[in-house]
């Protein structure tokens, strides 16, 4: 056995245990069930299994060589999350906490991101007509989006939204007024 090697290992482990990094702010949309930012990056080993089982191929990996290269993100602009929870089931490390695909559990525990509405492009808000598509496709209904006023304009409630991006996908091509952005309190916790 090599003494220097053992010492180096011990020193590395010790320095790691002493110096913990404070939690980072959310910068990416993580798959459903993801631990809070910081904890997620600690636990994810970039094995690609979440992306492998994703039926809509919404889970992608960044292309560069940066520190984030091994972490999955959701490309909700291109494909929505259908909340099948297959990725949380596939994750080997618990970076995605397991959430059963039961509507109540999904509605209360999944917080991928929060919706941001550009009212200037939204058809009802800009007075171009009635649309209602976002409310129609929303899996959690009035908890996340309400239709208000004579134009039936959508009013989002970020605290009730799971951030699946179905509304972002349903929003008509000429409007594209909805965008899910990172943020909101994730409740994945330390499973």
């Amino acid at each position, binding site marked *: *056995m*090599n003494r*220097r*090697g*053992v010492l*180096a*290992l*011990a*020193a*590395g*482990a*010790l*320095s*790691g*245990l002493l*110096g*913990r*990094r404070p939690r*980072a702010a959310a910068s990416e949309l993580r798959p459903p069930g993801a631990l809070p930012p*910081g*904890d997620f*990056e*600690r*636990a*994810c*080993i*970039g*094995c*690609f*299994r979440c*992306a*492998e*089982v994703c*039926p809509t*191929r919404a889970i*992608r*990996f*960044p*292309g*560069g*060589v*940066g*520190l*984030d*290269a*091994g972490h999955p993100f959701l490309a909700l602009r291109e494909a929505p999350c259908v909340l099948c929870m297959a990725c949380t089931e*596939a994750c*080997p*490390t*618990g970076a995605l906490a397991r959430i059963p695909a039961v509507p109540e559990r999904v509605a209360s525990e999944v917080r991928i991101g929060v919706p941001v509405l550009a009212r200037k492009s939204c058809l009802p808000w800009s007075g171009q007509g009635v649309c209602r598509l976002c409310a129609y496709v929303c899996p959690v209904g009035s908890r996340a989006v309400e239709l208000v006023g004579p134009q039936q304009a959508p009013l989002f409630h970020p605290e009730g939204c799971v951030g699946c991006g179905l509304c972002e996908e349903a929003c008509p091509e000429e409007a594209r007024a909805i965008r899910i952005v990172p943020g909101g309190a994730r409740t994945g916790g*330390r499973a």
Partner: protein
Amino acid sequence: MSGKQNGPGAQGLRAAPEPEGDGLQRLRLPRALTVVRRLRCRSSIDGSQRRPLDHLGTPPGQSAAARRARGLLQPWDVALRGGRAYQRLRRAVLMVSVLTVVGTPFLAARFADRTWPAGLFVGATGAARLLDVELVDPLMSAGVWLARGARPGLLGAALPVLLLVVVLGRFFCGWLCPYLPLLAVSNAVRWALGKLGIPTLDLRLPGWLRFLVLGAVLGGTAALGIQLAALVYPPALLARSAYRLAFGLGLGGGAAVLAAVWLFDTTVSRAGFCRSLCPGGALFSLLGARSPVRVRREAGACTDCTVCDVVCNLGQRPMSDRLDAGCERCGRCVASCPTGALALSLEGRRR
């Protein structure tokens, strides 16, 4: 022929050759000559170009003592003679591993609705789930353990490979690592470059460097809060690159790191990454340091032809009994030995 064995130089440093080894030795020597010529070894059979220091590594009387020990430990004394079957088995296992790493992503991409054996297999070597049994690379498991605290599920997932490593030593590198085919190509390119007269460096970085790298990777993982092994460990990079390709995401940064590793191995140092930089190899070396599976040399049958030293990718020196935890148990030295002096043996205790 046998002049070297009984010559004055060998006589002083080594116990007299055992009489029963002699017949075998004489029978096999002509083949030894051809192999040695083909590989252009530096030493010659008559010993005139022998490197004298190599013989100092062999303690006098070692062979007789080893034989006595083997006599005592009958049930453990399982010697794999004639390493060709061993090589066939190793290549078959390696091929399954490589096909898994490269094939699973393409199968998963092709059968996106998971009509192919759904639930039978998710993921590839490194983090696979086979029939609901999780298998995670011990290096990855250690990284998560350091960064997030002990997790019994992860330890259980690493346990099968851990146990195998403790028993078989650093076997993962020689039997399962999907980088090995790339390394074989690298060695072939080195050989071809040499034929063309283009020089390639063979920098011998110290082997303990990989333990520093392991410490840095694990320490950095805990300190930065990012799984660094996923960014530098070739099996993980290979698996992710294969997935990226299969899922139409392009090659990505992992492939760039992988290409850098391959170019380093090809132009700067033969298998230099595996030998002295790979954190996974370092971890397996540490865990398998007490493995009872060892390459054993029959000093009486050895002609000091250096073939075994030459074929070893990882800088082990079976000819002078200088093998350490860096041995990946690939058995190529055993298979290449022209006199059958080398064998992989199970030993009940350390020499």
